[in-house]
């Protein structure tokens, strides 16, 4: 089966690759573009380890076909730190020890950023439900939620300043 030429934008930069019709966005990112920050934990949209932003919407990249991203904007964990500076969420994850093995962390950070972009002042319950699509087996979520709430507070302060 012949491959399809895809032109897209990844983390603000133009990107192109060849995809077979059945290739997932996750496989395209990892195998064609060398962006291995998004992880495959299940391949069925249940664990969230492959979370990326597609035209500003949080998606499981294992459930998106690569040819679907023609002309779209894709943002991945690799684009979260800017100019050598960690995003406040990344910094708070480190300060709160919100990761152990770190495998779910990229997906959780992408999902948490989507939360704070949409809802800068979430309640703990809102944060827990927003992140319910991201499985973490190491932490019990306590420190993740604390990190997200702390980052939210810091971002609100930054905006107010």
């Amino acid at each position, binding site marked *: 089966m012949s491959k399809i030429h895809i032109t897209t934008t990844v983390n603000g930069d133009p990107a192109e690759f060849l995809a077979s019709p059945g290739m997932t966005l996750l496989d395209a990112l990892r195998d064609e573009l060398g962006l291995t920050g998004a*992880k495959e934990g299940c*391949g069925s949209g249940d664990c969230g380890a492959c979370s990326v932003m597609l035209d500003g919407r949080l998606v499981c990249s294992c459930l998106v076909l690569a040819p679907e991203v023609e002309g779209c904007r894709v943002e*991945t964990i690799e684009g979260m730190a800017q100019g050598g500076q960690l995003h406040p969420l990344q910094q708070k994850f480190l300060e709160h020890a919100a990761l152990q093995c770190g495998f779910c962390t*990229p997906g959780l950070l992408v999902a948490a950023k989507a939360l704070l972009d949409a809802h800068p002042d979430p309640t703990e*319950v809102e944060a827990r439900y927003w992140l319910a699509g991201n499985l973490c087996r190491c932490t*019990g979520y306590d420190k993740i939620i*604390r990190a997200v709430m702390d980052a939210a507070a810091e971002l609100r302060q930054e905006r107010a300043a």
Partner: protein
Amino acid sequence: MSETLDKPTVLNVVGTRPIRPDGADKVTGRATYGADYNMPGQLVGRILRSPHAHARIVSIDASRARALPGVKAVVTSADFPDLASEMHDGGEAASNLRDLSLNVMARGKVLYDGHAVAAVAAVSAAVAEEALSRIKVIYETLPHVIDVEPAMSPDAPVLHDHMFTEGLETPPTTASNIAKRHKNVRGDVDAAFATADVIVEDRYVTQAVHQGYIEPQACVAAWAEDGRCEVWSSSQGQFMVRTYCAKVLGLEISDIRVTPAEIGGGFGGKTTVYLEPVALALSRASGHPVKMVMTREDVFRATGPTSGAVMHVKLGALSDGTITAATVELKFQAGAFPGSPVGAACMTALACYDIANFTIVGWDVVTNTPKTAAYRAPGAPIAAFAVESAVDDLARKLGMDPIALREKNAVRDGTKAAYGPTFQNIGYLETLAAIRDSDHYKSPLKPNQGRGVAVGFWFNVGGESTAAIHISEDGSAAVVTGNPDIGGSRASMAMMAAETLGVPVERVRPMIGDTASIGYSMLTGGSRTTFATGMAVVQAAEKVILDLRQRVAKLWEVSVDHVVWRMGQAECIDPAKPDKKPMTLAALAAQSGRTGGPISAQVTLNAQGAGPGFAVHVCDLEVDPETGHTSVVRYTAAQDVGRAIHPSYVEGQIQGGVAQGVGWALNEAYIFDRDGRMENAGFLDYRMPVASDLPMLDTIMIEVPNPKHPFGAKGVGEVPIVPPLAAVANAMRGAIGLRMSSLPLSPPAVLAALDSRKG
């Protein structure tokens, strides 16, 4: 030669909460896990798995697969040596190498749905999958057995014709599925029950559950023409992978180098191999590197889980609460090959209690389910579910507070443990008191809520470890160990080295070496790394300091006893040489060429004296009487941690163990259809806790130092999963007024219990 070292009386690094040294890599997606690594020219490897729970393999015809363009190799059990039975102690649990080999690739029979029967290597995943569909396997299906009690029945289908039960007074003459009986007896249990004032007993059931690490197993293996092999894989021990690959393939250890990838969770499930020997065999057959990554379905069907169990517990007590008699019988599913954690379950079952008379019997039983693998305190949570439920019922019958009952019967320093040794330096009573005195325990409950208490024990181990410290010319230190960092151990290694050397933790870079770059270390398991490997790190740092003092003594022309190491520098305490200015590590490192060459030290040890872990948990549940849905509304876990090197990561271990235990109690279970096929091999149907399922998980760290560790550390990673099953079940008992003795306490089960209450 003096070995004295001024131990810092005030700790500057240990007990603080620095940012982990591998943190930036892990929040940016840069860290390289098993599936993130690629070799030039690699092929894709895929495994064909049995669709039957139990069948004889009549024939395997791979000719149509081999003929497919792009297929580079097909292997079956014919490509692996037929090993003799041989036990190998890998650290967490001993394994029979023949069984390991048969689990990696079935020979003659398949023993569970998902058992590997063949593997292919091809130029792409699509070609590899097409090739799998072209392999023709003819099976003669056999009757199968999934649950433990039916598997013990004399008319059960027998998995292994050669297996005769070990541990019986009279050796059996017929093969059965019972691999082994464990028995541990103290005193006269019948006489004690006869004089007991109060007796409780019940039957308890748990289902098989999976470790549930988010990263599926993954590896890349390359076999060179000269026979040298390279393996890159995600595991809990690169040396374990090397040994098992050598044994399963009949290779020399020296021909294999294993490089540890970052590991995306293991919880015991990555203490064995599934893919690596297959990838090596495919690489040998094809002449190319081969990459293999499991799907989540593969992970559920063919790796892990831990045992489902059926248990019986009977307790007898005097009216003052003294438990005088206990009988515990534990029947554990081992999966397709012997080796369930029932032995450890027997040893831990009564480890928190000082009981004069008991009988503990354990049965290790093979079943047509995946071979069980270690899962966090293997066996202990299952036994604790039964025993702690029974103790809770006993407290109710006696009218005693559940903590007071446990305090009355608690082991303490000097108590001979039910499993043999005499406890020393344990913090169990302090941990009980911490929960008793907590705000949580004193707080009132709302309607439909219940509170449960449970305790747990885990041995923790030490064992063989290697650590090396290399001082750079600027005085910074590289700390190299052989233990994969599964939950933040790089941070604790760096902190212990920094504390000992007297340098800031940021000046220490902890690394995990491949099998050719650092000496042997047992795998990361048994809660051993911070204790045992940490001890090696501290001793290596002490060796560096002694070397530095000797060099300075020569420079200053004083006795080495007159050079002390304080706060990262050498100081002269010779009264005859008051003019000697202190020399920092950086200054000494800069001129190491003139004082004897590079500064470096390595220590190997077999650490003894790991302090056992005790945990006391309290859980509040709220049950929705309409739906049977259960919410954990409050949870507090207290634990004796010895000394928390990095308190945040100790808290994290406790919280993670609680979450896994809550999932085990409320929802997780392997479900098989009538043909013995797993019905819920995915995260949608195998329901692990998500963020909205849990409240904040409060922790209380009790620090009763372990004198055998330089900073007092005890293993912390495993014991937090021991109490939650029973803590949840006891809270359920409180909430609905009925004892539910079969896990999981899922909404349909709770609803059925509520209905039975009405009826």
